């Protein structure tokens, strides 16, 4: 029997793979703290998306949120590797020399993924070591061409963030500017804050000890991504194919382009879809050395990261938090 699904051809069963570990590590201030905030949620991409927003008209806010969720469903139909007739389903079936046309959003997501792949020396790799450079992206004609067979794309480490970016743009179009969108708490994008606040309250907590709050943030016009491992989880380094060790969690904050006064599209790289980039970088930051992460943060104004290292083998004690970068006025943070 077909599994539980709404009538929109939504995937159920296994959804896109979560980049590293699972959706955890970011907390959002509860309704008690934010009384005037309306909350709407929806299942997509094997997780729960949520829109939180401030608007006088409850029905209007619900309709705006629904339009954003419909958009997430559409993106899932394009990006899911589990659907044979999604763009990614088709890309994953290309033999050497074949090409296929994809939607503008699929192309944009692939271009961002490729950009972060290059930025991180392959530590973020949506092909999980099957050969991302063998896919030629032609963004002018929206064509993807494979120069060799066997490339398998999994956008699990970026798709949710990308969906959150586009959902936020849609909410702004609807005039819901005081809003926050997240996909399973691992990709969060804060727009303008509710009246009387300087930002949306977020917490970063230890996935090994969820009650241990590592930092409290107040965020606006910023995306936050989280990757974390619980005991027994592991993450494979796409550069070596070996399981990576020594790190428990990583968080990345990326300011939205408007907040740092940059153009939405530059010549050097793709549009800075903040949540997509944060989502992708957080996976890479589970693997890169602290030095590499520092270097990246220096090169990218506003980029900020928190790395939770495992205690050294045989040592007791709490995992230690490393805080890198961050010069953006868009939010304030206090470590606790």
């Amino acid at each position, binding site marked *: 029997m077909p599994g539980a699904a709404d009538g929109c051809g939504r995937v*159920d069963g296994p959804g896109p793979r979560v980049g590293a570990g699972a959706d955890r590590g970011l907390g959002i201030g509860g309704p008690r703290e934010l009384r005037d905030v309306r909350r709407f949620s929806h299942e997509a991409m094997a997780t729960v998306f949520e829109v939180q927003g401030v608007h006088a008209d409850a029905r209007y806010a619900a309709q705006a949120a629904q339009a954003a969720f419909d958009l997430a469903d559409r993106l899932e139909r394009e990006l899911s590797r589990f659907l044979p*007739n999604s763009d990614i389903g088709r890309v994953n079936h290309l033999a050497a020399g074949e090409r296929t046309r994809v939607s503008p959003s699929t192309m944009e997501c692939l271009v961002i993924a490729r950009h972060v792949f290059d930025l991180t020396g392959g530590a973020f790799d949506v092909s999980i070591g099957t050969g991302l450079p063998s896919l030629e992206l032609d963004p002018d004609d929206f064509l993807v061409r494979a120069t060799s067979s066997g490339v398998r794309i999994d956008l699990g480490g970026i798709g949710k963030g990308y969906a959150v970016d586009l959902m936020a743009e849609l909410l702004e179009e609807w005039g819901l500017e005081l809003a926050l969108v997240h996909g399973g708490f691992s990709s969060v994008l804060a727009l303008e804050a509710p009246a009387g606040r300087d930002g949306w309250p977020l917490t970063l907590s230890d996935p090994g000890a969820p009650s241990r709050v590592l930092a409290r943030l107040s965020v606006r016009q910023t995306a936050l991504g989280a990757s974390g491992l619980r005991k027994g989880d592991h993450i494979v380094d796409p550069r070596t194919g070996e399981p990576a060790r020594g790190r428990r969690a990583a968080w990345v904050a990326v300011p939205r382009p408007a907040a740092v006064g940059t153009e939405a599209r530059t010549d050097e790289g793709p549009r800075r879809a903040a949540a997509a980039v944060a989502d992708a970088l957080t996976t890479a930051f589970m693997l890169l050395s602290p030095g590499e992460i520092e270097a990246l943060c220096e090169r990218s104004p506003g980029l900020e990261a928190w790395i939770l290292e495992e205690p050294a083998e045989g040592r007791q004690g709490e995992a230690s938090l490393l805080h890198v970068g961050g010069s953006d006025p868009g939010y304030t943070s206090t470590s606790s």
Partner: protein
Amino acid sequence: MAGKDEKDKVTEQAGAAGPRKLDRRDVLKGLSTVPALGLFGYAWQKQRQYQQATIEAAAAAPVASSDLQVINVALLGAGAQGQVLTDAMLRIPGLRFRAVCDVWTEYNQKRVVNQLRKFKHDVNAYENYREMLDREKELDAVVIATPDFWHSQHAVDCLKAGKHVYCEKEMSNTLEGARAMVVAARDTGKLLQIGHQRRSNPRYLHCYEKLLGEAKLLGRIVTLNGQWNRAVAPDLGAPDRYAIPEARLKQYGFKDMHQFRNWRWYKGLGGGPIVDLGSHQIDIYTWFLGVNPSHVMASGGQLFYDPKTHEWYDTVMAVFDYDTPAGPVKAYYQTQTTNGSQGYFENFMGDQGTLLISESEAHAAKLYRDTNAPAWDTWVQKGYITAPKVQEMKEKTEGVTDVRESVSPDEHNVPVVLRDPYHQPHLQNFFNAVRGKAKLNCPAEIGYESAVSVLKVNEAIEAKSRLSFKPEDFHI
């Protein structure tokens, strides 16, 4: 009971008769791992051909090869469905978009125009379709995805202007409207394809032609059921800043923005969920059974949503009767819009097996063989269906029945996969027909027959009685 005991005895004797033989499951399991082309050659080839065609199609876009006749296309109706069709058409070679027409010039029209321009189609934008038909002299075809109550006038005028037309289902919200479309297609000699896109879906075609037609896997189909259940959702809204001025809404038949966005729920504009959703699947009932229904009874109600803004039934349960050459069939259909349990599917049940099929590629199609039915090995070997999913069988102690968790019946899959957007094959069929290289899979006459069956459900709910169809109801 006597029969059952006898059968059990036979099984027991066979079990006791010496060393365990390979049973059918084992053989099939073994065969399925042999990478011989002959075994799954058919399905492999069929899939391969289909994929090759679509890959070539994608590779050809956006520049069609010189021998491919370029078709000049306009989109009339740029809402959600128009956008789905546009997305599919952008993957079909040899199309040149010339115009987009939509009364929501502030939002949907802009969105589709921008999308097409990204793909280098130099399109003109129109609010009024007559103006578009007057000015765009080079158009060959118009794809219509406007609200149902506009279909008839739009399609008839486009046909009379000499254009081929692809029109979304429901063909029309009235039978008079649908009839006028059939007549206009006949009078003008132009093509009119109705958007029952499952009729071009390679998996549905495979089930129809091979599994039911040639292999007759289900034996005698006696009953079927199907559904489209959709989760509760708020009414559609629109960004405040892009609202359509009231005068323009009135000009195009809408009393306000809410009705414009939610026309499917209003009498005189749409037909409610039974028409929006049920239409696709009731069309499949008729197609697969090969005859139109003889009777329908139905119950429906406004059980959940505000009846003032949801004039049609949010919940419908209907039973159709079919007199097929093989015998009578009862077909149940349900649609409701408050809980998405089990999504959408059609389930054909015969005395020898079951075919559970869904348009959703996430669910695809499954077949279950009745344990007493003749073996399906031939069809597995021909590649029409996959080898059954084999249960993990532990070694038995000879002659002793091992009591265990019950073993599920054989489950086969249909090895035909659609790798394109859902509407692409049906649109491709239409454009192939425009080029004279194919026959329409859902011409106006078929769309009309389907409309007769589906619109009658709402009538039966209102009448609170079983209504009958006469054979002539389906013909013009």
